[in-house]
């Protein structure tokens, strides 16, 4: 129907922008806390804060396009790629290089990937606000979102392994989101969005949201609890991290919407 043709790309663009913003907020707060913990020893540690803050401003402002936005998204991707390099170097410079202990306690090797994804999703949203081009089918974006969710699962899995899965809820982000990502990946390949992909993505967004509460509880279980928040926010599980799942799931729902539209 004509009305669907008109509104679906715009709604999808909004979902992508919302997902990119959520991811950006997660990156901003998480890298702010983690890099503060690391005393900003390398000046480059300030870059992801700047990049994510600017992109949030653009992604949150709705309609757009133009050079400043494109430059912002490109910067996010470039800084994220640089971050991957720095973090990998940080892990490998430790004794014995690639070991579980170094992956647990070195710079989180996959974390800068979230900034790359935020930039890509923001750029995709801008593109969809325009003519959409090759992104219009939603399949490429669904594949990207699935890849992003798998990456976040890897990071959550690694860090929850570090925490020895001491609380059964720590299994949630390594069970539900991978199912959602796998289902989404299949849909991206076939081009046929299935209802339960949507349901799983909704559940993934929920996991990302309640994850904040679980992490807040985790903070309270450190010595001194919330009364000692200045230390325990940094020592406990990272509260800004779980919304990355929500951001990716929201963006993925935008991709699903595009795929549905493409199917008519």
């Amino acid at each position, binding site marked *: 129907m004509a009305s669907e043709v008109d509104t679906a790309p715009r709604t999808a663009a909004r979902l992508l922008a919302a997902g990119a913003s959520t991811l950006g907020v997660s990156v901003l707060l998480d890298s702010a806390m983690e890099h503060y913990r690391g005393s900003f020893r390398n000046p480059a540690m300030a870059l992801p804060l700047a990049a994510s803050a600017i992109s949030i401003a653009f992604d949150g402002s709705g309609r757009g396009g133009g050079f400043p936005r494109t430059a912002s998204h490109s910067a996010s991707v470039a800084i994220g790629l640089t971050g991957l390099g720095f973090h990998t170097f940080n892990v490998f410079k*430790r004794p014995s290089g690639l070991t579980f202990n170094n992956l647990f306690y070195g710079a989180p090797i996959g974390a800068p990937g979230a900034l790359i994804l935020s930039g890509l999703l923001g750029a995709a949203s801008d593109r969809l606000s325009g003519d959409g081009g090759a992104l219009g089918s939603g399949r490429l974006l669904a594949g990207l979102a699935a890849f992003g969710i798998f990456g976040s699962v890897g990071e959550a899995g690694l860090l929850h392994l570090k925490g*020895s899965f001491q609380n059964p809820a720590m299994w949630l982000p390594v069970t539900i989101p991978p199912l959602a990502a796998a289902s989404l990946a299949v849909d991206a390949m076939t081009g046929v969005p299935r209802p339960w992909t949507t349901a799983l993505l909704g559940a993934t967004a929920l996991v990302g949201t309640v994850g904040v509460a679980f992490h807040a509880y985790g903070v309270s279980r*450190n010595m001194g609890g919330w009364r000692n928040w200045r230390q325990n926010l940094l*020592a406990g599980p990272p509260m800004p991290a779980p919304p990355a799942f929500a951001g990716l799931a929201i963006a993925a729902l935008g991709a699903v919407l595009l795929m549905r539209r493409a199917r008519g």
Partner: protein
Amino acid sequence: MSADDPQQVPRAKGGRAPDVFEPGGWVPMRSHSQDEEVDFVIVGTGAGGGTLACKLAEDGFSVVAFDAGPYWRPLEDFASDEHHQSKLYWTDERITAGANPIKLGANNSGRSVGGSTVHYAMVALRFRPEWFKARTRLGYGADWPIDWQEMWKYYTEVEQALTISGPINYPWGPRRPRYPYRAHPLNEAAKLLARGAEALGIDWTETPIATLSAPKGKAHRCVYRGFCVTGCSTNAKQSVLNTWLPRALTAGAEIRDLAMVGRIEVDKAGRATGVHYHREGAWHFQKARNVVVAGYAIETPRLLLNSACEQFPDGLANSSGLVGKNLMVQLNQAAWGQMKEEVRSYKAPPSLTISEHWNYEDRGKDYFGGWAYMSQGPLPITWVKELAGQRGLWGQRLIDEMARSNHNVGLKMVGEVLPDERNRVTLAEETDRFGLPIAKVEFSYSDNDRAMMKHALSFMDDSLAAVGATERWKEWDDTCHLNGTARMGDDPKTSVVNADGRSWDIPNLWVCDGSVFPTVGGVNPSLTIQAIACRTADRIKALSARGEL
């Protein structure tokens, strides 16, 4: 003196015991009358006695466990102050003798409910399997009457109970199950051990230690405060005090703190009938069907010897004449140096990395036995004592050296001392405040010990040199841990107790602590003591089921 000073007034009485997880908290405790003949009286609540009390209570036996020390609540009783925390050590008068008299206190004793595990370094290592048959397989010391495969099972039980944080894969020995919690982040001192080991071409790993890397129940995870060996004030340390004993209380065991057992009573038939103990200013007698001595390698033989009576004039369980003999310390020598960059080695648990290479490699040694070495993190008072006592610094030179202690790095060994009957615990003429003869502790290094020290110090020094440490020096005189003095074995003529810790002479008298070790190996003993306690409990349960107690 405060009415709630746990060093002056017993806390565990009146049907309640301290809740170690809550300031001012209490948990219910079953109480037994002194006339009630309980199934087991256990003397000591450390790695041996505390673990056994838990296991026996969980098996349904009635248990009263005594400890001479106070019942602490770590969250409210422990300070970040080395001097104050010396309250955790057994500093009663003892006589030390021999060619190399050992220093008693911090490194080898505890006077607390929970024993020395309240201030131990938490290093949780398994024996090398061959050590259980050291005489047969390696040609030195004595064989244990227990097989390593059986011990492997009990090690696993203890590692689970203490939620040990350890590496994903352990580089030495037969396969072991995954440690319950992941290893901790490495401090700089630990990384320097790792880099040194890599330079020398040997394996290293994160030390399996009994402090939490993630929360567990009411216990917080480690905050890397670094005061582990003076008592953990956050409960991250998994000591007998906050693991086995809360379980013991839940299962119905009674614990009596500030209760010094002075004598085991034996009847005409040659069976133990109970113990005389001093509490709240008076002597009392607790009846029991079985008595377990778990006072560690000095107080265990002291109590057995002090309980000499008409039937057993040389002390209880001493027909072999071996009670008090074969005292084994462990070598605790260290290599030290200075790094250009800051190390701050005292942050975090002191021994985060380890190499057990020389426990498992016998080639290239001109001595028997094994040794491990670990990274170090001495607290300021400990370090100033080392510099003054071992290195001879004083005055301005000492002040200058302390001012740059942030750059200090060290490696310390835990080395196997062989059993030798000349190293022993006997009774002195002098008596203590309870009127009990005090222990005389004799120890001398052997040529084997000196050869091991020489090799270890040279190797550790090489490791420090390989990471660029300068102004290196060697600390030649330090020991840790105490074992032996009531050896277990297969033959009543050459051992004090059998594999179950049961005395050959008095069938209802048992020993359950590091005293029963025929050999000590090159690893910290606490895990093995607890594993032995778990095994002893299982054996007692089995014997009881067969009516053989």
